């Protein structure tokens, strides 16, 4: 095959995501393969598996890989053959790059992941200006939601669906996951509607995000990435309520870090990608892979579609 294959692997605390960019010679468009698998106990194995699936989706093979950027908490565990140029960068840089590719005018990226939440501010040239990360406590992260879902005996998708039915503006106020679980029980005892309690959980996260966002000042469009936004429509709703503005949700929010990593691999080791102005493009040929109600699988789409994407309806 002519052209190049650039890979981004985001070995996150809960899920490992991969984006493969396949650049054909004499082509203005790239193909994108993407996949996500649970990280489990073995980041190296998860990275191998997700790469295999994403390569297959992109119609590429491992020997064709030109360069890779590994990111996420498990980035140091990502292993590739020595022939592949491998760089490790934090997910903060990678999410910023991915989000910027989708939304060239975006100035803030909210990445709500399993282990932590980051709020990244971009400068007008698209580079990371600064960022905030939540404190050590899990409150405000995906783990916070999962922990309470377990306590309530409901899958997260059901909590999300319940939250979307909420009509009463209820917010859970606790600052810590354990205390919030207790507050949920108190709300149940007090007779609050389960829909409102569910939405209150998302509002609790959103209020932490607003804290972080406000610290550095807010001065432009906001995009939300990461697993929680991927799987929970209520998260986006809570963020929009809290920020009092619409936020961008990219086509593959959970893959934003991997996408940014693949773009950075291409920029570091291959062609330098220019940031294009967005054009309205239909995205109906992105394969089902990771929308709020979907099971994470793998898929393929056009890179241009991803780069210029608007969010998919959930």
């Amino acid at each position: 095959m002519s052209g190049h294959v650039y890979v981004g692997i985001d070995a996150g605390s809960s899920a490992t995501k991969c984006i493969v960019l396949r650049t054909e010679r004499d082509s203005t468009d790239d193909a994108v393969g993407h996949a996500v698998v649970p990280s489990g106990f073995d980041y190296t194995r998860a990275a191998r598996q997700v790469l295999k699936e994403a390569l297959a989706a992109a119609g590429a093979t491992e020997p064709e890989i030109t360069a890779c950027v590994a990111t996420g908490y498990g980035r140091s565990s990502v292993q590739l053959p020595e022939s592949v140029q491998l760089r490790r960068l934090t997910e903060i840089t990678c999410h910023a790059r991915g989000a910027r590719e989708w939304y060239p005018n975006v100035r803030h990226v909210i990445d709500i992941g399993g282990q932590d939440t980051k709020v990244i501010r971009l400068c007008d040239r698209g580079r990371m200006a600064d960022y905030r990360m939540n404190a050590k406590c899990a409150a405000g992260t995906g783990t916070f939601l999962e922990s309470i879902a377990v306590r309530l005996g409901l899958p997260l998708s059901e909590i999300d669906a319940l939250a979307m039915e909420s009509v009463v503006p209820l917010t859970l106020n606790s600052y810590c996951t354990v205390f919030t679980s207790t507050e949920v029980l108190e709300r149940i005892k007090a007779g609050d509607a389960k829909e409102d309690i569910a939405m209150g959980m998302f509002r609790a996260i959103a209020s932490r995000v607003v804290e972080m966002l406000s610290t550095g000042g807010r001065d432009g469009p906001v995009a939300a990435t990461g697993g929680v936004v991927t799987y929970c429509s209520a998260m986006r709703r809570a963020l929009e309520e809290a920020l009092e503005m619409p936020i961008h949700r990219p086509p593959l929010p959970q893959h934003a870090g991997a996408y940014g990593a693949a773009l950075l691999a291409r920029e570091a080791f291959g062609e330098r990608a220019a940031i294009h102005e967005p054009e309205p493009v239909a995205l109906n040929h992105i394969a089902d892979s990771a929308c709020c109600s979907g099971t994470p699988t793998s898929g393929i789409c056009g890179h241009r579609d991803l780069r210029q994407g608007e969010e998919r309806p959930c």
Partner: protein
Amino acid sequence: MAQTAVKRVEIEATSRLKELMRAYFLDLDAASKDHNRRVAWCTSVGPCEILSAFGFAVYFPENHGALLGAKKISHEIIPRAAGLGYCAEACSYMNSDIGCDLTDRSPLKQLYGIDGPPRPDLLVYSTNQCRDVQEWFQYFGQRHDAMVTGIRPPRHLGDVTREQVADVRAQLEQLIERIEIRYEQKLDRRLLREAVERSSRVSQLWGRVLETARHRPSPMTFWDMLIHMAPVILMRGSLEAIEYYETLRAEMEQRIADGVAAVPDERWRIYWEGMPVWPRLRELSEKFFDLRAAVVASTYCNSWAFEPYTGGDPLDWMARTSLEIFINRDEVRKERFLASVFDRFGVDGAIFHNARTCPNNTNSRYGMPERLRRRLDLPVLVLDGDLSDIRFFSTAQSMTNIEAFVEQLEGRK
């Protein structure tokens, strides 16, 4: 970031430092077993010159708290202090020292073959840093049936006034009087003046050692300074400390002349604000080294670089020194000081350590990092952690934070 194969150059004076520390602790141990000698415990920026002029062997328990953290013992023994009702979020130096007392796990035993911290005859605090030291000393005073006393300087000062100096000076006189009565011994004011002169000399030399880090590339980093600051805390009124810092300064100046960098190919210069994370010193120093980032200056190490004693009443100098230290100043003075040091050391960014159990030596809680970021257009990072209790520190999250911070600096190039 790619790992580097470059090795760091060891500081030659380290072997002399080890000898000094060994001699210091062996002497303390001997003093605690000798009925003709007395041991006083003193806080790190406390009135130690008075104690040494009285003839006490002076021990600084905060150093032991740091040691318990550095040896990764604190988190195992702090729960014992909590069992006595000491809050886990109170000073982790205090909690680990109390936990150590309850478990008999002092690293001093293995390091120097001594029985552990010396038994105090007298405990003298200054609350110019925090009030935790007072409670800490009260515990050990009761434990050893020893006299606990101290001074309580005014806190969080803007300009230091003559009245405030007079207030602390009067407290120092009262302290002297209490010790004189308790031990029926008159303080030899000549010895006090000599101790102050030596303290000032040691402190000045330490300041000059720190100043060598202004050079690009820096001959030493914060991680080195944390090790080599021991004499200025533990032995600051001694001739040995003077000799030691003259040696260390000469070595750093030779490094500058020879072009030896503490971090080869130094790309970034960072300021560290707040307490060190003692249990993760190695990991942090290696991370910064791999990132080609030299932490060239810190509030913490600078805390023992006092204004010089230029004659006059030594108690005036002690009073002024105890008031003027960074930790005892208001936000305006602290911010002004930091902006000036950032500029003098040419730092690319500043890291503020939000130490969970040390609010007094944490300066990220009232908006200072954000104000400095905006005013100076300087990247800042607030890192959550603790000085000693590792349960408040997430290594993975912190390392990602530090790497991302350096990536942010790269983006500004």
